[in-house]
């Protein structure tokens, strides 16, 4: 199977179908990323914008990277920033904290668990820490790829993730929440 880089190379030579194949590979992941940040309705509109922006900037893609997903995340993040800037202040969605509204993120967690504890802990992180955590925990990126998305040195991203994890562990109630979940899991 051709790598994303090879397909982008073909699209540069005029093979438009090759580029569509690239976005088909990543549309679920990028769509989910957008939805986490702005909700389903807005994400559905933004996804097409992301593909167009990616197509227009494919000439700058560094083809030494076989997989294009981090590059697409970076483009998606740029579109999100533009989207947030264009919103009236009263309609701004405070990135990850917005996930506390409108949908249930806990389909796999026991209903007895008080999920507000963890939501509050996430909301208490610094924006940069949440950005890295979201990309690593939510998008399954490596720290190096998350750094590439955010335009940070890998060491800085590692430090931010370390701080985010420490912040979560130390947040009120999270240790107890983890202990409870592990206890339930262990008893099954």
């Amino acid at each position, binding site marked *: 199977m051709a790598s994303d880089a090879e397909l982008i190379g073909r699209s540069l030579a005029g093979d438009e179908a090759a580029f569509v194949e690239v976005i088909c590979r990543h549309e679920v992941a990028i*769509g989910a990323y957008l939805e986490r940040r702005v909700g389903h309705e807005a994400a559905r509109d933004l996804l*097409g914008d992301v593909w167009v922006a990616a197509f227009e900037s494919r*000439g*700058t893609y560094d083809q030494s990277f076989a997989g294009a997903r981090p590059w697409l995340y970076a483009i998606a993040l740029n579109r999100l920033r533009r989207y947030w800037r264009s919103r009236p202040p009263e309609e701004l969605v405070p990135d990850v904290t917005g996930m506390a509204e409108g949908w249930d*993120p806990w389909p796999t967690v026991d209903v007895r668990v008080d999920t507000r504890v963890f939501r509050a802990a996430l909301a208490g992180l610094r924006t940069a820490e949440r950005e890295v955590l979201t990309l690593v925990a939510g998008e399954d990126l490596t720290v190096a790829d998350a750094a590439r998305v955010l335009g940070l040195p890998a060491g800085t991203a590692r430090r931010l993730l370390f701080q985010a994890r420490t912040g979560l562990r130390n947040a009120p109630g999270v240790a107890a929440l983890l202990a409870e979940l592990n206890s339930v*899991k262990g008893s099954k």
Partner: protein
Amino acid sequence: MLDEMDLAGQALQVTLWRPEEYEQARTRLRAAMAEAGPLPEAALATAPVPLRGRGVPEAGRRRRHLGPRGKFGIGAGIAVAAAVALAVALAVAPASPPAATTAWPAPRASAATPPLMTLAARITAGRSTVPGDASLVIATKQLGSTTEVVYSLYTDSGSLYTGDDKKTLTAAVMKNENQADGFNDVEKPARYAASGDLATARKMMAEVSAGNDDYFLSYAARKKIWDENLSALRAVLRAKGSTAVPQMPTGQVLQDDINQVIWNGCQDALLWSGNDPQARAGVMRLLSTIPGLTVAHSTTDGQPTLIITAGPQGFGNFTQVLTVSAATGLPLSLVSSAPGAGTGRETDQNSRVTVAAIRAGKF
């Protein structure tokens, strides 16, 4: 056993969209494609050429680690400029006849040798202690319109802490977020170079700085690695509109690669050797083996300094100006620039501090 990353992963789960919602986005893309003409030539020209695969030693291989300067140092813009320049060199480098040991010639004296050797001797003779127990490097990186500041603390005991500002650096120290991870390996070859054979010291430093020993493999072994990666490299160049056939670096191109990793390793060693005059003396001796360096005497805040300039020739078209104390060899500043890129510039301010002062936020 669940941990906080599992909780975050679960918290961030969303459900799949309906197929027609993805198709709607694809339709938007196809419409844009129909409107777009061929990609402008200029857009192709700006595509960065990968560093990986530029030379045999690192072709297709991942470095064991990046030195601190690799992590936090030379800006990406400069790296891109260097990569572009190296790619040009790749494209035009003639195929040199095989030479099994060209990667490890005896070092030759350069114009920079006398002042550097003098400083090495001064450091060795003085063996003076320096204040503090750590080196603080404040790097200001300008990449295009973006400015980034990184605080790095290299302790004499071998720990590395980083932060975006004073507050986060203090927090990193307080929480013992040590990121050294073996980056101070460069001190060993630097110490050896203080009194050891310089050809051996160069080999040691190049291997540690690059994270592998590929530079010093036989021609046949390097050629094998090169051939394994050649098709991927050619595909990249083709996609960027180049029909040039890359040549395996040999001769001067290979020597330039080696000199660059030694230069980088020496800078890392200086950051780690605040309380290690032997390593600093060794660094000066190692630097004296790099052809093309220039050294000028100057003063900084009334103190005598040496200004050591590397590049652009032999350094992929980028230039670095390292200012060190003419008494101790401690680095004071580093300015990197790449005229070709015009967007990358980094200035490092180096000072001696105490870890206690950092902990207390008094710096």
